[in-house]
């Protein structure tokens, strides 16, 4: 079935006339995503690859009817305003791609989302991809690569991937596909410490998706997402098999490993604690990333 996105959802691109916006619009359209509009203040009336551009999200929604998803490609300092504009115009799901969004901006976005019943993925996300259906963001880079790398769902052996790393979202998808596994949806939750849909939230969506047989997680040091997932497993809200790899075993307290969210602080968010919590809850946690496909196949059977 896929979660979050599919070929029917109507997608708007904020920042469509910029370099990133244009390149990713091409990728998304070529892959099968229904990109219905773009938005760049001052460029209303133009077209990008045949997609009509509007000045505001509200204009687009008024003109075209429903906009289900907005994907944002604007500079970091402009993400908050763009996101809140979309939320207030009634968009239910946002995908926030830019890196370096200030965390207090994300807090405001989260508050607006909560008040309006909306959700968001990211910030600092490579996006979401449902094989055979749609991609929102930039996973795969080229439509042809995305088609080649990621298998469509296969009955009885389909996984949903949730990753805290962008590149590793593709990597997990690729190696699992080579091993014969099908994929329902790949979601990069984003590299920041504060994000919208977190690992446990996406896991709950995959749990409810009849096409997903198991959940694969690429986790990292820092934050509490993996521990929270373990709690959901322990209290029976996640019953499907969970297979995980946690990056950052070499990390020590206080040093950040690139992602704003990948830092151990005050003894919390350590590699060891995450691995322990997940294993205790019944997840299969692999030590070496190369073992992921085999571990997944074995948990699927």
């Amino acid at each position: 079935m896929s979660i979050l996105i599919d070929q029917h959802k109507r997608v708007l691109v904020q920042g469509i006339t910029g370099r990133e916006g244009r390149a990713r619009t091409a990728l998304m359209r070529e892959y099968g995503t229904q990109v219905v509009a773009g938005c760049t203040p001052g460029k209303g009336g133009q077209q990008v690859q045949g997609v009509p551009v509007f000045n505001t999200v509200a204009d687009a929604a008024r003109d075209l009817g429903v906009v289900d998803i907005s994907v944002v490609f604007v500079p970091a300092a402009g993400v908050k305003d763009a996101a809140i504009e979309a939320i207030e115009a009634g968009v239910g799901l946002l995908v926030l791609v830019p890196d370096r969004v200030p965390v207090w901006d994300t807090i405001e976005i989260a508050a607006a989302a909560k008040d309006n019943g909306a959700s968001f993925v990211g910030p600092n996300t490579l996006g979401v991809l449902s094989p055979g259906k749609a991609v929102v963001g930039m996973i795969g880079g080229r439509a042809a690569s995305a088609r080649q790398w990621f298998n469509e769902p296969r009955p009885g052996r389909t996984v949903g991937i949730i990753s805290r790393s962008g590149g590793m979202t593709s990597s997990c998808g690729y190696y699992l596909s080579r091993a014969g596994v099908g994929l329902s949806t790949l979601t990069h939750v984003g590299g920041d410490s504060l994000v919208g849909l977190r690992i446990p939230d996406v896991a709950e969506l995959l749990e409810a998706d009849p096409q997903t047989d198991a959940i694969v997680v690429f986790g990292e040091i820092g934050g509490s997402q993996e521990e929270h997932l373990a709690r959901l497993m322990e209290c029976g809200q996640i019953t499907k098999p969970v297979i995980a790899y946690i990056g950052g075993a070499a990390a020590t307290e206080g040093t950040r490993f690139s992602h704003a969210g990948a830092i151990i602080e005050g003894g919390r968010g350590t590699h060891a604690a995450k691995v322990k919590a997940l294993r205790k809850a019944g997840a299969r946690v692999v030590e070496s990333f190369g073992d992921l496909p085999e571990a997944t196949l074995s948990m699927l059977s």
Partner: protein
Amino acid sequence: MARLYEYQGKALLAEHGLEVPEGGVVSSPAEAARLAARLGGAVVLKAQAWITGRAAKGGVKFASSPEEAQRAAADLIRLRFGNFPVTEVLLERAVVIAHELFVSVIIDDQARAPVLLLDARGGSDIEERAGSIRRIPIDPRRGIDGDRVRQVIGDSPIDRAVHQKIARAVETVIEMAALYELTSIEVNPLVVTAGGGVVAVDCRMTVDDYAVFRHPALGIEIARELDHPATELERIAYRLEQADHRGTFYFARLTTAAAPDSRGLIGFHGAGGGGSMMSMDAVARVGFTPANFCDTSGNPSAAKVYRAARVILAQGGLVGYFGSGSGVASQEQHHSAYGLAKAFCELSLAIPAVIRLGGNGEDRAVEILEDACRGLPGRVEGYRKDDTPAFIADRFAELVQGADGATWTPRARSVPAYVGRSYRFPIKGGMVWIDHERCDRPTTAFVIEHASALLRAEDGLPVLGVSDAEVAAKDSELLALEVDCRRADRPVVFVDLAIPGLD
């Protein structure tokens, strides 16, 4: 995150109406004696360092005379906490404590909102009292429920006469968090003095890295949390990152010496946070010690990757250079290949390098890298997405073994003789030089063909063919041109991307 020292945090609190002890920062025993004399009476001296449990580690001393203050300062300035030497000491009038509270605001990643942690029984053993801390959510739009705050204060044995002052102090702490975009602020203890005052006796603040640009008044030089004072190389790397936001460049030194049982120190170059961590795990598992962590990702320019490689190779004692990301990159990989090739050639790399370039355009990227580096003393190999991290880590170990203990000595880049004399034009961050003297017709044709339509022929020589503004941001295309020219044995183009501090 960028951490502020106690005295910096206290200065901000005082600006916003929260009382702090009277005092000042000193950096010598003589200064300490003078300040203690001016304040008169009992004083406390506190080492300024980013650690917890400072008192238990000898970082806090009391003095009741200027002479004692002088000795105490001397002791503190000799201390090191982990990798941080103490250079500054905060000297304050000692406060007579009637009661202590713990007040902190952090960001709850599950609630996606700030949260107040408040304990009206406070003190520095807060970890032990974890059970009595109250967590009160802060609604980003509506603020905190003042009644709940007053209830927590009211539940304590503190004199009712100061409850209002305490509530106001708590409000100030919350305001500070939002105002300065702090990822955390901790006032522990917030003290009720014998005289009924409310004073912040300690203060720890951490500012969000990504918000530092909006708060120049905070004077934060490097918005990074490192477990050691920034090295010169890290400062250089940080300045490079700030100058170019096309993609990420994150660099942190880890160690300068390999463990005794290690196979050796290596330069590590990751691509993508997660891929980097995974690759570091892989190369550590075969026994190597990364000298540094580095991540260039988010579709970085060739120039950014080049500069990253230069920074990594400014470290001595390396037995090899290991580069690997997620292996299945969505970005086009040839930019990274060009950037690495330029750096390796300029420095005449003499240690083995294994680079996993898997992802879009991997075949082209591997070809570029291996072809450009084929004459170098060190063997350079490129790998694709079907080559697993474990496989390339093993291959890397094999190559290092075969290199018989050769280690890397940082050196100046080699710059062609014509640089400084020949035809040139500027680009952002550097200068492009073209050796017209060696441009015969076939060479000119070759250069123009590979110049991404940026050059044209004039009198049979390649010159800039577009406006200055148009070529300014084309450093990656011109870097690729330089490498392609060198590969074709026509080394007539040089892109000077000098790195302040290294060159």
